[in-house]
């Protein structure tokens, strides 16, 4: 779903909310897409990691010591089993610019509805590559990937999935 400030996507997972939240955080590198389109430094693929808790961060880590990192954003809301929110910044953002990802975990009996909102697009400065509405390279730079041909493949896969 798209509104004036961003997008909302949801999925139902057949586990309880605390488990969904825990796996979302602890296993982030196992489920986060490995295609370069979904990564933050062109030409490099690291390990995705949440530093958990208030004051934590979402990182892509490129070395074993954890010193060579790209910080996607700080955690803004940490409410296990209920809500997670973090900043989202990619390479072409200015200091102080950010969008926000907010994720709700809602118990619906037989599972958990995970609802993700990515908002704050209207707050970016004019001319920010993320706001260049047309397809392709700017979007990849914003997200962190590199390959323009992948976009067509990617959208084909999403549509084929029937979502």
């Amino acid at each position, binding site marked *: *779903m*798209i509104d004036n400030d961003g997008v909302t996507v949801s999925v139902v997972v057949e586990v309880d909310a605390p488990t969904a939240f825990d796996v979302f955080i602890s296993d982030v590198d196992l489920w986060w897409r490995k295609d370069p389109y979904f990564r933050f430094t062109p030409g490099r693929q690291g390990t995705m990691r949440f530093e958990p808790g208030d004051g934590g961060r979402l990182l892509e880590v490129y070395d074993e010591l954890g010193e060579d990192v790209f910080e996607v954003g700080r955690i803004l809301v940490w409410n296990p089993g209920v809500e997670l929110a973090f900043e989202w910044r990619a390479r072409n953002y200015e200091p102080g610019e950010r969008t926000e990802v907010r994720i709700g975990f809602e118990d619906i009996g037989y599972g958990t509805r995970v609802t993700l909102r990515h908002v704050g697009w209207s707050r970016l400065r004019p001319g920010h590559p993320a706001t*260049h*509405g047309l397809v392709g390279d700017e979007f990849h*730079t914003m997200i962190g990937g590199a390959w323009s041909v992948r976009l067509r493949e990617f959208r084909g896969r999403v549509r084929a999935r029937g979502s």
Partner: protein
Amino acid sequence: MIADRSSSEDAASDDVDGVLLALAEPTRRGVIDLLKERPHRAGELAEAFGMSPPAMSRHIRVLRRTGLIEDERTREDARVRMLRLRQEPFVLLHAWLDQVEAYWRDQLGSFKDHVEKKHPRRKR
């Protein structure tokens, strides 16, 4: 690797910047919401937000300048200025947000596959 954008893409990205700037202001977002329902006179918009006509005119100018709204010519009375939405800027912004939405659909799909494989439901 960023390819050079054509001039038509530059014009299009200016449109998206304008849309985002215009929508960063709550009154203008409210005006857009009203115009989504139907065209309105400028005076109606001022009343709807409890604003003086000059104050609302400032917002209307921003929305016209960024190409979000336009005059609708009415036959009955040429003096009555009806304002309505233009579709093109929303098409561009939505194209952008469409990609963001697809990105997160793919990520959440991957999360679902992983968590359900890790914690399968007990078979009955």
